[in-house]
């Protein structure tokens, strides 16, 4: 025997680099430190979103004008030193209205997103954990609700209850929780089957401990990625409803409502009808870039772990865990 004591023979393929099991960074680490390892579009998304949020938070202090003050003598004016982005059909400052309107758009999208994410995650985890009829009920509801276009649901609710913030948020939530439930159920089933969770169960760890120590930290990155992706979708849908005059109601105004107001003047003052839409587009793009950046990182990590875990077996390349397409 050689003096060198060696590990047992392995069946690893030589061209696959094998590392220690990777530590799953939490979402803050991902956001702060992870930018370096990601595509530059991820960093772009983070920068754009940060800029948006900063401006919207600071709006009351930095908005150059009162968004409601009309100046009918100065309607549809082009950009100037006084009005950087011009004025709208009532002579109001477009930049200030964009800033104040953005607060509505982003807040409503954020609230509905939070409700969707929390309820979806809870229902999905419950379905996975309980199984049986709970699982059946939740997943069949998902099957059905996922087919309902948000705008149609909104019209239904408006027919029943009239317009209003409650209706708006409900309309975006009724079908909006389903992608989260689907994702969380899948993740929870996957995590539950992991050896270390089984080990923790055998060792008698309390359920809440397993939940907080193992399930949530592992589910957080994909749920965060999904949240960012859905956030863009919410922004667009909120805007659509406002554009139809069914969302944010006057005197409040958001980007969608601004677009609606500007329609008759599209030709005379295109900037009034283009800027609010551009704001929605850029805000939605920023979160899409972040969401897909997070998702991509997650996938490559998973693939590596699969590759090193089961040599010889065909390596599954996961399609996006996020139902990217389910966004009507």
């Amino acid at each position, binding site marked *: 025997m050689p003096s060198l004591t060696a590990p047992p023979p392995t069946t690893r393929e030589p061209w696959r680099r094998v590392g220690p099991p990777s530590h799953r960074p939490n979402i803050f680490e991902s956001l702060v430190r992870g930018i370096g390892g990601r595509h530059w579009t991820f960093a772009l998304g983070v920068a754009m979103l940060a800029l948006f949020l900063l401006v919207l938070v600071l709006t009351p202090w930095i908005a150059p004008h009162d968004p409601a003050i009309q100046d009918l003598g100065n309607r549809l004016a082009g950009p100037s030193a006084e009005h950087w982005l011009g004025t709208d059909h009532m002579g109001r400052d477009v930049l200030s209205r964009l800033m104040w309107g953005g607060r509505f758009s982003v807040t409503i999208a954020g609230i509905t997103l939070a409700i969707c994410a929390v309820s979806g995650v809870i229902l999905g985890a419950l379905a996975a954990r309980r199984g049986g009829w709970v699982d059946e009920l939740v997943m069949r509801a998902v099957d059905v609700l996922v087919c309902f276009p948000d705008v149609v649901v909104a019209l239904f609710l408006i027919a029943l209850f009239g317009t209003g913030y409650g209706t708006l948020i409900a309309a975006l939530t009724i079908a909006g929780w389903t992608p989260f439930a689907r994702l969380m159920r899948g993740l929870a089933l996957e995590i539950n089957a992991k050896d270390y969770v089984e080990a923790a169960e055998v060792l008698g760890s309390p359920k809440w401990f397993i939940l907080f120590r193992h399930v949530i930290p592992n589910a957080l990155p994909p749920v965060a990625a999904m949240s960012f992706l859905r956030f863009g979708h919410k922004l667009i849908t909120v805007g659509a409803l406002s554009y139809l005059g069914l969302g944010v109601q006057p005197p409040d105004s958001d980007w969608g409502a601004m*677009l609606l107001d500007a329609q008759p003047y599209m030709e005379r003052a295109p900037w009034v009808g283009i800027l609010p839409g551009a704001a929605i587009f850029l805000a939605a*793009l920023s979160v899409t870039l972040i969401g897909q950046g997070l998702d991509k990182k997650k996938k490559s990590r998973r693939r590596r772990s699969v590759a090193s875990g089961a040599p010889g077996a065909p390596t*599954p390349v996961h399609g996006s865990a996020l139902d990217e397409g389910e966004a009507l």
Partner: protein
Amino acid sequence: MLMFLLRRSLVLSVTLLVISVLAFLIPYAGEGDPARKILQARVNDPGLEPAQVEALTRELGLDRPIFVQYFDWLKQAVTGDFGFSYTSRTPVGELVTPALSVSITLALAALLLALVFALPLGIAAATRRGGRLDNAITFISQSAVSAPEYWVGPVLVLVFARYLGWLPSGGWTGPAFIVLPAVALSLRPLGYFTQVTRAAMSEVLAAPYITAARSRGLSFPVTLLRHGLRNSMLPVMTLFSFWFAGLLGGAVVIEVIFNVPGMGRLLYTAVVNNDVPVIQGGLMLILTLAVLINTVTDLLYSVLNPAIKVTNA
């Protein structure tokens, strides 16, 4: 398979039951006398005297318990009879049928357009994963997905209808009228289709049977066409039909912007004018179709993909 069918039809019937109850309750919501609203839908005469209302209420059984009325309503609803539209004074069925065919045309035009561009883009990205082209295509798809159609639409109108004058800005009286709404509507599905094609195709290209096909001397493009496409198309087709079902009634904004007489605009104007019978009929039809189309898609998916049986085993 039989279990699947049974389960799905159960889900479908429960869904329809819930939707129909909610739709039935619409006249009871909001202001105004529900009985009057219901009568108005039935007799097509907005100027009823109170005495006539009372007589008709008794005659039509609107004073009976509400669940009895529900079943009466449902009985008529399943035959497609939702009464008369308040605004146009025509039976709801006569409004809905042409609107649906318009929406189907628009949805197909938009989605096929999206597919025509998304397939090559997605495949090109998948074959050059991580390369510059892949990055560019991914960024394009992310932008497409983030572009609100009610922003793209008016801009298209501004450029192609107002400035250039090439295409009509709205209406629905000829093939040229399809172009702008279809383009505006196709952008977001284009982005999603591209992403799904890319993901599916990358997965397939890494599959062992691709190596096997190559080992028989098939060139890469031929392998891609013969084995790659077929295997990666199922998720794309699923998404296609998902979007199709969604756009039948969900293309509200575009139909409103471009004045397209489809289901979305019909429903929207009905809601704005509180045209109860049209709302009821339109919602029932759209939501039923949405669930039905997706159920059929799921069914087809498992029939068309023998591989599922392997992976599930």
